[in-house]
């Protein structure tokens, strides 16, 4: 029987189990859960399930390690071992090794024998060192005395045998399957009919089996009932005359097989509706299925928009019923869309859950004392956004521990608690989610940032405000590599963090106060699948500009447009000159008939990647929510376009990638 099809479920569930173990161990260590006995039970159960599954599916290395782990956890659970910091450390490393082993089982590759050996040795050392040495299981006595003669078995079932669902007939049948069996019923215990309890076992048997039947087979047949029955198995010389079987003690015996008594006696039906309503029922669904659903709903939204558009010129009186139906359809479509989008939403805990472990490890390595607090883990966010926000968060958390928080000595000297606090929080704010990483460390050093910006030739506004200074940290090339440790300086700087967040349509800002700490606030849209867009007409086509990036739109006056260096055009917006991009030229549409320096009919000013630029368009058409279709997945990547959508009239509109345009645009010229 091929059970490999259950492997995927096993791996997935094992990973969840390991996460639960890690989380539980960390919370036990921080004492957050106090002496909550359920935490250790959860950890134990996870190890136990992984062991059972691994054994069944034949992943021996996993089974062996979880077995040792489980023994240790069982001692903790039974109060025979104290879970100190060292023990937790060993357990956590074992969890890591298990993760690796499972990955090898799942995807192939080499087992890291060194790590496995080390984890095993550490666990063994703990087990050996602890007061509670694992009880040596007595080696199963393998009675191999079975060559002599026939078996004589006296079998007296316990009176309650039937009440555990056992049946002497089944046992007799099993024994008989091993060889020719002699059966003698002993009915001495049978009471008068009037006193008989139909649920009790009264009959007993004397059995004989050939000596060729292994003793183990006989023991196995009785294994489930051995404790409640009298069973006497003896080997008698084959040739000898049949001695009377050992008289069953009390010569008692058995009962009518209560097959009839097993009939339901009065089952009380319970309404099916009561079944597990309190349980957090969930199903696992492939992301591709959800995405297909979202796509279909997207199509529906488009169809609905098309119907609305077509119906606009209808006579409202003659078509009252139809129009009312269309309004209803619009409402239902919107609700459906929201619900379906909700399916892709995951609690932000998916991103946060990795941090307790990371913070612990980092703090240990840097010899700092850090306690991590998280708030709003249940806040939901699109799965795609969560996956992409992890890396920036990791970077920010590393920074906070490495640079933000001081050493215990420094903190004492500053009159603070030795233990620094790092807070991760998430909350909804309208159509956005706000994620904040705060530390109560030394705060940013204004003078040093300004000095560094000057050293690296980064433009600094005059008399910068604090916010403007903090913003310099995100400038490309500001990386503090010369002083970064191996932890936070690994290749990526804050500029990459900002770029990743901007790519998600989000914003990031820093608040900081010397001596009190730093907070990095990230604001993200709840989903990337739908954007609020401004639709604009360019060269006879419709484009969508994401509303979040639009600063303003204006009607330029003659003379506001200048051409510099013969090529680049700039637009004067109040006292600034910002690059002006003709979207028609940019996207290869027929150029407008206007002259070079003639003002565009309308300029839309957008801000992306910290730069502003003006987009030249023919007309503003309106604002609408659009369902983003991935262009790369359906066609190929095009510079300056971030995606496409389908309009109510069925036409395709491209979505302007303001960030990409800003990067390729010429640098603004200081006027």
């Amino acid at each position, binding site marked *: 029987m091929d059970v490999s099809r259950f492997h995927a479920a096993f791996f997935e569930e094992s990973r969840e189990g390991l996460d639960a173990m890690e989380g539980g161990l960390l919370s036990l260590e921080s004492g957050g859960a106090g002496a909550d006995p359920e935490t250790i039970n959860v950890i134990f*159960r996870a190890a136990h399930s992984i062991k059972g599954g691994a054994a069944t599916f034949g992943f021996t290395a996993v089974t062996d390690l979880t077995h040792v782990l489980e023994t240790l956890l069982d001692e903790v659970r039974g109060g025979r071992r104290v879970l100190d910091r060292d023990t937790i450390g060993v357990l956590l490393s074992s969890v890591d090794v298990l993760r690796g082993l499972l990955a090898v089982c799942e995807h192939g590759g080499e087992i890291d024998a060194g790590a496995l050996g080390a984890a095993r040795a550490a666990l063994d050392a703990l087990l050996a060192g602890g007061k509670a040495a694992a009880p040596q299981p007595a080696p199963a006595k393998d009675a191999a005395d079975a060559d002599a003669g026939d078996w004589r078995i006296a079998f007296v079932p316990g009176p309650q045998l039937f009440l555990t669902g056992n049946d002497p007939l089944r046992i007799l049948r099993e024994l008989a399957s091993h060889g020719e069996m002699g059966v003698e019923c002993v009915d001495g215990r049978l009471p008068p009919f009037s006193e008989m309890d139909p649920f009790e076992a009264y009959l007993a048997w004397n059995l004989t089996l050939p000596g060729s039947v292994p003793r183990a087979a006989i023991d196995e047949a009785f294994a489930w009932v051995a404790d409640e029955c009298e069973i006497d198995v003896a080997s008698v010389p084959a040739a000898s005359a049949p001695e009377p079987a050992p008289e069953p003690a009390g010569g008692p015996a058995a009962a009518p097989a209560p097959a009839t008594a097993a009939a339901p006696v009065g089952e009380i039906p319970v309404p099916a509706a009561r079944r597990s309503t309190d349980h957090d029922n969930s199903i696992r669904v492939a992301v591709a299925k959800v995405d297909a659903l979202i796509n279909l709903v997207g199509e529906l939204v488009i169809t609905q928009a098309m119907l609305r558009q077509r119906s606009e010129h209808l006579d409202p009186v003659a078509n009252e019923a139809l129009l009312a139906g269309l309004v209803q359809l619009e409402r239902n479509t919107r609700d459906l869309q929201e619900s379906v989008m909700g399916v892709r939403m995951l609690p932000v805990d998916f991103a946060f859950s990795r941090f307790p472990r990371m913070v612990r490890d980092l703090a240990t390595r840097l010899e700092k004392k850090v306690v991590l607090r998280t708030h709003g883990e249940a806040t939901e966010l699109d799965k795609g956004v969560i996956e992409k926000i992890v890396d920036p968060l990791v970077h920010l958390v590393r920074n906070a521990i490495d640079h933000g928080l001081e050493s215990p000595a420094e903190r004492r000297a500053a009159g603070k608690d030795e233990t620094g606090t790092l807070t991760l929080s998430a909350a909804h704010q309208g159509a956005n989610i706000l994620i904040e990483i705060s530390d109560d460390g030394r705060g940013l050093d204004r003078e040093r940032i300004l000095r560094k910006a000057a050293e690296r030739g980064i433009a600094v506004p005059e008399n910068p405000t604090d916010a403007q200074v903090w913003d310099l940290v995100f400038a490309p090339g500001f990386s503090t590599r010369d002083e970064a440790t191996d932890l936070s300086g690994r290749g990526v700087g804050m500029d990459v963090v900002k770029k990743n967040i901007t790519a998600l349509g989000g914003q990031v800002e820093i608040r900081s106060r010397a001596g009190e700490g730093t907070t990095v606030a990230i604001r993200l849209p709840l989903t990337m699948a739908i954007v609020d867009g401004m639709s604009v007409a360019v060269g006879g086509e419709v484009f969508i500009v994401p509303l979040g990036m639009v600063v303003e739109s204006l009607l330029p006056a003659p003379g506001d447009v200048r051409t510099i260096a013969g090529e680049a055009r700039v637009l004067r917006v109040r006292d600034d000159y910002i690059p002006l991009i003709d979207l028609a030229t940019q996207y290869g549409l027929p150029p407008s008939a206007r002259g070079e320096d003639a003002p565009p009919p309308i300029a839309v000013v957008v801000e992306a990647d910290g730069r502003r630029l003006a987009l030249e368009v023919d007309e503003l058409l309106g604002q609408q929510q659009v369902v983003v279709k991935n262009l790369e997945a359906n066609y190929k990547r095009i510079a300056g376009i971030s995606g496409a959508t389908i309009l109510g009239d069925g036409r395709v509109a491209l979505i302007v990638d303001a960030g990409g345009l800003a990067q390729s645009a010429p640098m603004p010229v200081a006027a």
Partner: protein
Amino acid sequence: MSAKQLLVVDDSTSMRQMVAFALTSGGYQVSEAEDGQAALEIARTRSFDAVVTDVNMPRMDGISLIRELRQLPAYRFTPLLMLTTESGTDKKMEGKAAGATGWLVKPFDPEQLVATVRKVLA
């Protein structure tokens, strides 16, 4: 004769599905429950010819489930088997005391499982 009805109880999805698959292949009709509490609720609404349950589970463990099931008239004589990883006898005896018919020790192979179930239902 219609197929015998079995209830498989395990909090581990992969194990539960594997056991259910093996028993279905053995010709049984299998229902699943993910812990003792859920199993008990299902068992109250309909009867099964046998129940195969894991021991360690959240909410209600297998031994409590067996104890509860045995109180139900319809389950007085029903074979109730536990799947256990413990090779020691403590859990087995605890299960027996609660009314378990017998046990299977993990790891078991699917054929062995089917053979055992067939045996108790014979």
